[in-house]
């Protein structure tokens, strides 16, 4: 280090500057005797006086750097994801299922039939394995779809949802409803 390094102990101005931030930020951290020394030195040393004022200005400005706050549902999302990852509490899937059961029975039956009909159409249609167009371009699409989306989702159901995925889904859901 060069001679103007404020950390150099035999440099009185350096020693003053080393204490400048503590002097400015938290007077309690410096003993009164040291504070007196610093004041006395600064009265006779315009350079250190300017340094102390500059340090004080920085300390005063630091609170201006504000951080954003987490969204109002952050805690709920984290807790839900943790619950899902633990496997002990009710999983998101189970809660969704529970919500469906609470539908009126006729509506639930109708919805179930509709889903089954749509699934039958989906798997029997062209371009899907087992359907008339199997083996064509549609199959490649399905494989891609299967690898990217369906497989992880299936794994999730078996081994417990991936917490990060659950978090993202929940956040996307809450964004859709609350924002």
């Amino acid at each position, binding site marked *: 280090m060069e001679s103007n390094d404020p950390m150099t102990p035999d440099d009185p101005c350096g020693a003053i500057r080393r204490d400048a931030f503590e002097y400015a930020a938290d007077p309690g951290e410096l003993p009164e005797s040291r504070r007196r020394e610093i004041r006395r030195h600064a009265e006779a040393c315009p350079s250190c006086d300017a340094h102390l004022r500059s340090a004080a200005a920085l300390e005063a400005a630091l609170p201006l750097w504000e951080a*954003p706050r987490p969204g109002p549902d952050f805690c709920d999302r984290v807790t839900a994801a943790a619950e899902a990852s633990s496997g002990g509490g009710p999983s998101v899937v189970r809660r969704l299922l529970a919500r469906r059961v609470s539908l009126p029975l006729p509506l639930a039956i109708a919805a179930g039939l509709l889903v089954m009909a749509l699934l039958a159409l989906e798997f029997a249609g062209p371009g899907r394995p087992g359907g008339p167009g199997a083996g064509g371009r549609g199959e490649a699409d399905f494989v891609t779809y299967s690898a990217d989306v369906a497989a992880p989702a299936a794994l999730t159901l078996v081994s417990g949802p991936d917490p990060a995925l659950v978090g993202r889904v929940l956040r996307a859901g809450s964004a859709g409803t609350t924002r």
Partner: protein
Amino acid sequence: MEDLDPEVIRKAQRGDMDSFARIVQYYQPSVFSTVFRLVGGQTQSEIEDLAQDLFLKVFRALPRFDYGRGVKFSTWLFTAVKNVCYDFLRKRRLPTEPLEPAFGRSSGKEAAGPRTDVKADAPSAKPGEDMLSTELGRKIGDAVQRLPQDQRTAFVLREYQGLSYEEIAEITEASIGTVKSRLFRAKESLRMILSPYLTVR
């Protein structure tokens, strides 16, 4: 930083989800702001994702937290915050622009420093005190992101979380002397970078 009631932590360690929710509720403002300040330049949703991942890691590691070792829970938690942020930065390979040494250089170097280009848009415009404060706050954030990682961590934990030197030393696995030195260097660098925008009285 005041720790949460140890009984709440112990219940969470035994799998009580309400207690875990209390932990998240209690620490989320400080964890969130620390993540924001340590990684920098991310969107709100990215910070939320990171903070959520962090809390999930904490949740899984909770049974391993041992009060018997005499470590405060907040120290343990902020060690996890630091580790998650460092991992994130390493994976992202964010360019950390090396900072000009704050001292040991001629003053001419400082005068020709990189901040002169933004000098004109700050104090001269004077569009209102709030706007200037916001702008200065943003400049402080930018300047902090230019600090070396270890200095930034010490600075953020001390200035914005009010952690003691001892806690920061434990979190960063450094001596108290090293922590003090990093803090001093961080502030000295910030003072020099931001001097054109600071109101010196």
